[in-house]
């Protein structure tokens, strides 16, 4: 992974010192809360319902075990013994105090981590495929470009006060695990006929109140020009994005208002002036960064597929885990292993300090001292020897991190919701817990197959409900918490927004409604169709009937 050199270290330490001064000025009363707010937000510090929340960047989701141990220490010393992994591949602490934050940031700096720009109207943490550099289906390692964009965007003087926040994601695989189509800028790497890499650039995707699937603004750009192209987009956005209404300030609104063609024209005109300038990335810098992400010295191993199948036959629970929680690795004899942070009844994405330490020990032992955070709020060991699979599974099971549900119904994304978030209409976490308690049978989950459920506590959509195969949105009905379901959303290379199923349901009815939807799918599916395949074939009607048919409401509609 990337390691700081003297420049990176100096910059981060200077930023910590600067924030320490800002906090001191606030505590002295020299700054009002109003003046301080944007400063703390630039450093990921939010004021939530009950306490300050600090969001720490995990750049493109890559963590070393040394960093994870530091995160555990922070959870223990400054928080309530746990942290929450987010859909931006970051970690949040929900119970920190303002006075402690400079020390927390200093501790993070020791392990090359920051909270810079994890909030505020600026470029946020760059996200990527959690299997980057390891997936068998990958064309290019996106982390190299994420790191270049990370440096370009940090403390960028021109773009610290954009109209609104700005999110960039990169995938180097045709199977998009980074949801690039719902980002302000999404980058997809392709190869040309000569095998040279380049980017397809998507712009204007996003979730929130006005969900939009991003559109291709340019289908090919050479990698060395990617920063100048991003600068052209950011500048056009900074100049013309709306600033009169925060709900209309994201770049997607600008792109929609101008139309993609006019927007493209503005960007291309700007880029024509920037192209070939200072932002052109020199070959030697690309090579320098690439060296940090060079494949580790994998052992020469043989594929252990057969041996693992035999173990799976002897131990079906292991088999279910193998099927659901592992993925194909580039190197023979290796595999990618997901650690599920979605055990039954557990708060999605939470991990306590003790288990952070234990996970770090396991990553040292089984995965070359590194791990990843996925945008679906799980952890990933990217370099596991297949011959260690059984032993690792046993160790993970003991920690409660081997629930065989990755990509399955109970692998839900849920935002913090009303339990923590000041903007929420409803509690997302208890709904997730109810559903996961409702679907505990492993064989049923296995029979249902790949199906994502995403839950947001309000229309800001931090839980990505628009792009869940089943989306659940908390709404407020005369002070009561209700939940609106959507079907058919997807965030991969065939990204789509979900369709509204019908009237919102009270919390108690949600698990049963999900069950009806799932049973309807199991009834209707042809051969090996996934839920999404079936939904796309048959449409929403049968699902509507399945959920609402015994109620007056639907009889009226029908």
């Amino acid at each position: 992974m990337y390691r700081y050199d003297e420049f990176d270290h100096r910059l981060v330490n200077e930023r910590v010192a600067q924030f320490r001064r800002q906090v001191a000025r606030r505590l002295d009363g020299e700054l009002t809360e109003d003046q301080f707010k944007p400063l703390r937000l630039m450093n990921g510090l939010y004021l939530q319902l009950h306490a300050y929340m600090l969001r720490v960047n995990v750049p493109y989701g890559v963590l070393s075990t040394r960093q994870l141990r530091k995160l555990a220490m922070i959870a223990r010393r400054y928080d309530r013994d746990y942290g929450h992994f987010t859909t931006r591949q970051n970690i949040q602490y929900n119970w920190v105090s303002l006075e402690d934050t400079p020390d927390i940031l200093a501790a993070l700096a020791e392990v090359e981590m920051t909270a810079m720009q994890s909030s505020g109207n600026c470029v946020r943490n760059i996200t990527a495929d959690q299997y980057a550099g390891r997936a068998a289906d990958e064309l290019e390692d996106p982390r190299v470009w994420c790191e270049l964009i990370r440096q370009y965007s940090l403390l960028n003087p021109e773009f610290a006060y954009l109209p609104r926040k700005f999110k960039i994601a990169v995938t180097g695989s045709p199977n998009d695990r980074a949801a690039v189509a719902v980002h302000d800028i999404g980058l997809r790497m392709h190869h040309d006929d000569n095998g040279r890499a380049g980017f397809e650039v998507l712009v204007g995707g996003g979730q929130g109140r006005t969900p939009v699937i991003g559109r291709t603004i340019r289908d090919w750009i050479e990698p060395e020009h990617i920063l100048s192209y991003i600068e052209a987009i950011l500048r056009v956005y900074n100049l013309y994005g709306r600033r009169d209404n925060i709900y209309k300030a994201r770049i997607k609104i600008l792109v929609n208002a101008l139309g993609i063609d006019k927007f493209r024209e503005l960007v291309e005109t700007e880029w024509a002036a920037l192209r070939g300038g200072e932002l052109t990335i020199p070959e030697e810098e690309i090579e320098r960064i690439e060296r940090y992400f060079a494949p580790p010295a994998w052992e020469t191993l043989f594929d252990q597929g057969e041996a693992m199948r035999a173990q799976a036959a002897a131990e079906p629970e292991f088999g279910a885990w193998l099927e659901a929680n592992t993925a194909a690795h580039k190197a023979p004899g290796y595999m990618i292993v997901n650690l599920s942070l979605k055990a039954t009844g557990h708060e999605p994405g939470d991990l306590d300090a003790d288990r952070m330490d234990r996970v770090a020990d396991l990553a040292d032992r089984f995965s070359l001292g590194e791990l990843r955070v996925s945008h679906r709020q799980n952890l990933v060991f990217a370099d596991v020897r297949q011959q260690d699979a059984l032993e690792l599974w046993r160790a993970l099971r003991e920690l409660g991190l081997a629930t065989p549900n990755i990509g399955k119904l109970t692998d839900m994304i849920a935002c913090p919701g009303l339990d923590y978030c000041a903007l929420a209409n409803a509690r997302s976490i208890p709904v997730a817990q109810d559903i996961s308690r409702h679907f505990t049978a492993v064989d049923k989950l296995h029979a249902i197959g790949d199906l994502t459920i995403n839950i947001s506590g309000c229309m800001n959509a931090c839980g990505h409900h628009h792009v869940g195969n089943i989306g659940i949105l908390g709404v407020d009905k005369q002070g009561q918490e209700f939940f609106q379901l959507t079907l058919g959303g997807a965030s991969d290379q065939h990204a789509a927004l979900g369709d509204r199923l019908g009237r919102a349901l009270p919390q108690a009815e949600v698990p049963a409604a999900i069950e009806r939807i799932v049973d309807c799918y199991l009834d209707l599916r042809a051969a090996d169709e996934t839920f999404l395949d079936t939904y796309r074939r048959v449409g929403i009607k049968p699902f509507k009937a399945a959920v609402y048919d015994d109620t007056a409401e639907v009889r009226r509609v029908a």
Partner: protein
Amino acid sequence: MALVKNGELVNDPFRDVTGADTIPPDGAVLVSLEQWQDHCHSLQRRPDPVGVLLESDQHPEIIADDLDQIAVVALAFPTFRDGRAYSYARLLRERYGFTGELRAVGDVLLEQLHYMQRCGFDAFQLDGEDPARDFAIAQSDFSVWYQPASDGRLSALRLRHRRV
């Protein structure tokens, strides 16, 4: 309000007449874009320097051809959250070749000075008890930068690969 230019507290020689009905016949003045457009000829013939204030929705491209007649371009920050003038400043310096004074006016806070300076501002209208001290603090925060901007400072990337 005090003016800090190139790090020092200075007297502002420009009289702000942007809200006035008439423009005084002599002395250095700061005018609005509308005044500049309406009185372009008389203003250009004045022996004393003229500055133009642009609001945050007035793109400096409008005056790009007049820049050799203009001594000061003042860019307004109606609120510190409105970041358009950072881009205007860079365009003025890097694309339109403006070499005169580039002044930040409006909601200009200590914490933004560093970014402004990097984008090409060299003069700042500041509130506060000790503006020169604020400016010095803002200047001392960082000694390394990731991006090239208008201030000519070498980015970390350039320093890494500088050949000795």
